[in-house]
């Protein structure tokens, strides 16, 4: 039997206490236990970025984090606009620039963009490309996503 562990964390600004199997993956906890399905799974091994979240302020792949590691952590997902107001501007820019097609990469892209803009409010195009290079998108060819991040950075700066 797998041992369970008691953990507590802040998710999108709210505190949660939870008992989780020691080998549970944080992505599954967020999606299946916390019912926040905005965070997606595209590979389960850190290669696609669909599961990107903010973890103590850093962008990480939730599929590579074990749930016990989240004990005491502050987590923000794409649903976390209440704690990360910038999310709204980024989401709006993605919609308006046409940066969304099937939309499956979108939450991860938006979270990587948020991390980027948090640490670098005025990124250059090449910094944007680098910032989202861990997030794969098969639909858009990235052009409009890059534009959306640029636009969001301007909107937030206003």
């Amino acid at each position, binding site marked *: 039997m797998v041992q369970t562990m008691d953990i507590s964390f802040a998710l999108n600004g709210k505190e949660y206490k939870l008992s989780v199997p020691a080998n549970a993956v944080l992505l599954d906890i967020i*999606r*299946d236990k916390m*019912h*926040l*399905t*905005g*965070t*997606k*799974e*595209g*590979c*389960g*091994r850190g*290669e*696609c970025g*669909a599961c990107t979240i903010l973890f103590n302020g850093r962008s990480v792949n939730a599929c590579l984090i074990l749930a016990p590691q989240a004990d005491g952590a502050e987590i923000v*997902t*794409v*649903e976390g*606009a209440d704690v990360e107001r910038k999310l709204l501007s980024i*989401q*709006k820019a*993605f*919609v*308006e620039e*046409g940066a*969304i*097609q*099937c*939309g*499956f*990469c*979108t*939450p991860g892209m*938006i979270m990587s963009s948020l991390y980027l803009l948090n640490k670098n409010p005025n990124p250059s*195009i090449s910094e*944007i*490309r*680098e910032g*989202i*290079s*861990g*997030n*794969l*998108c*098969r*639909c*858009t*060819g*990235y*052009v*409009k*996503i*890059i534009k959306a991040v640029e636009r969001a950075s301007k909107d937030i700066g206003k």
Partner: protein
Amino acid sequence: MIMEDFKYIGKSVPRIDAADKASGKIKYMSDLNFPGMLFGKILRAKYPHALIKKIDTSQAKALPGVVAVVTWEDVPGLNGFGIVTPDQPVLCKDKVRYIGDAVAAIAAETKELAEKALTLIDVEYEPLPVVDDPIKAIQSDSPKVHDDGNIHLHTKVVRGDVRKAFEEADLVIEHIYCTGEQEHAFLEIETGIARIEEDDILTIYAGSQYPQRDQMQLSRCLALNPCKIRVVSYPVGGAFGGKDELTIQPILGLLVLKTKRPVKMVMTREESVISYWKRHPMIMKYKTGVKKDGTLVANKVIIYADTGAYASLGGPVVNLAIEHACGPYKLSNVDIEGYCIYTNNGVSGAFRGFGVPETAFAIETQMDIIAEKLGINPIELRKKNALQKGDIAPVGNKLTTSVGTVAVLDGISKTKLWKEREKYLVKNTKKPWIKRGFGFALTYQGTGLGVGLPDYGGAILRFCENGGFEVGVGLVDYGQGIGTSYAQIAAEMMKCPIDKIKVVLGDTALTADSGPTSASRGLYLGGKATIIAAEKMMTVLKEKTSEMLKVSVDNLDAENGYICMKNQPEKKISYEEIAAQFMKETDHLPETEGYFLMPLADMKVENAFGLPHHIFAFSAHLALVEVNTLTGQTKVLKGAEVIDAGDVINRQGLEAQSEGGFVMGMGYGLFENMIIEKGIFKTTNFSTYIIPSAEDIPSDIETVTVTDPEETGPYRAKGVAETVMCATAPAITNAIYNAVGLRIFKLPATSELVYTLLEKKEEKCNESTN
């Protein structure tokens, strides 16, 4: 018709589902969970080719928490599926033909238990020799993948006198082209959930491209009346052809019927890669004859396509490759043949372009070679041979719809990339090992399923209490943007604000059968059907208003959500009031349906199922590349597409297709290839199968549209979802030639390939100077 007259058509309307996608609110099928659900897992084959001697599930069944274990014995109906030929078992009985073949499946209380139970199923195999080379596979002494041989389909189309034409040609160019096996790599893996819902309806929630056909195929496999099956397949996290055929649905359905509980099935990326469809790798022998003045006179082509273990859409892919093998050029002496070949190399099926990116690579390289050898400007060479309206296409059909070949070629000069290419091509004096080159290629793609297949669009329009409308089309928006286009069309037709339109897609219970979401047909057919349904709805609204206002229908007009009197526009009734009137009188709101049959060519190509097509979209692709001669690496610096989409419905959506198509085509051209050795996949994840990332893309991808309106199309539009990726690879390889003088005959043009070819070239140079 002037586009400016429209409120929504031709405008850049943001996707109607974008906000819900951006906020993470929208529920994909993989996001659904139902109370009491079980977890399903599939046992895949242990060998790419083997006889099954025995399947023992007793230990797995005995594991506490396992609710069902199913094998072929549990399939109540036809143990086979496949869009054209149902030759793929739901669960294999006596033989496995590829490493992803399904042998058994489990439903258990947890994912972990289901996985554990898989290891407890004991299957005894007798391995067979692996058929992994399509050319050897068609020899008579090859081991057989299927009892009746390894040739699934052989098509030959002959016109004119090829032999004589080659004799009369001034130049004959002969080459063999090979293309790689491309993986769809949609971000959402095949995943689904199913359960029995009200009225005993088996409801399957799984991303797909044609719910009504899934329903039909499922009904056959599960021996269940189709009206007892509902398929919901929207939204989908990408498909590109890879979800056209059934994937997990039959097994999911089987497990639900067996357990009477909801079952969820989640694939891993690796399982998805080994189990489901890919682009056919092709070997294409080309021999093209041309006159000194550049007139093409003959083309002889043989295509060998590796379709893997089962048919699915392999036959139609080969036939479409044949139809497009000559490019959009006039050729009256052709001999084109194609083999669709079974092997144990996974399974190939539908993929954006459907045989055309492969042949476009070959013919557009041939054209580039010819232009150079004859000293003719490559655009002029293509223009000289360009198919135009009224011409006979290579397979014999007369082109009577819009043909944008020349418009697209002329459009090349409108791109910034063309105008400034000289500037970009300056030598890099600091890094002389970096060479730049420019290239382009032309392509076209048939819309719809072709002759001999039922090809129709269907739409339901429901009047809603708020005075808005719900459009129900069976097609699926997996990223292309058709849902938004239907909303634009419905709003334009019904003269109401677009936010009053709700679009429902891909649900057998709520939408009209509109055929498969494939073949660049979604916008065209779904759009036309929506127009017809809307026309009927407008009549219904006007008739009701005429009763209410006691005026003749002829005196009524529609305007911004109102039906009003033509000469007294202030006398009007809002759609909401009309809806209320209906409710008052009948407690019911009207709904209308529209159906549209695809126009067909005036002839049929004998012995070539589905050929010809009748409506085509055209595009030219441009690329500026940089080749590092020390590493062989090619980087695309700039790209452009010139597209004939007829009149454009949604500018933003079209650009999105163009950019996405260009980048997917770039991946195909430069690095994407599924490596399979002896039937075993070697590149099953994103660190071994590389798709383009944001750092790989060009700094610019321009989209220029030229309009050759298609009079039969919805607001004169044509679909372009495929053509936008078809000629990117040859544009890049032609640019590589321009940069370093290397002809690429094999895709992808990886660093290794280019590096090796550069080495060889150098050796040759040295030999000839010694």
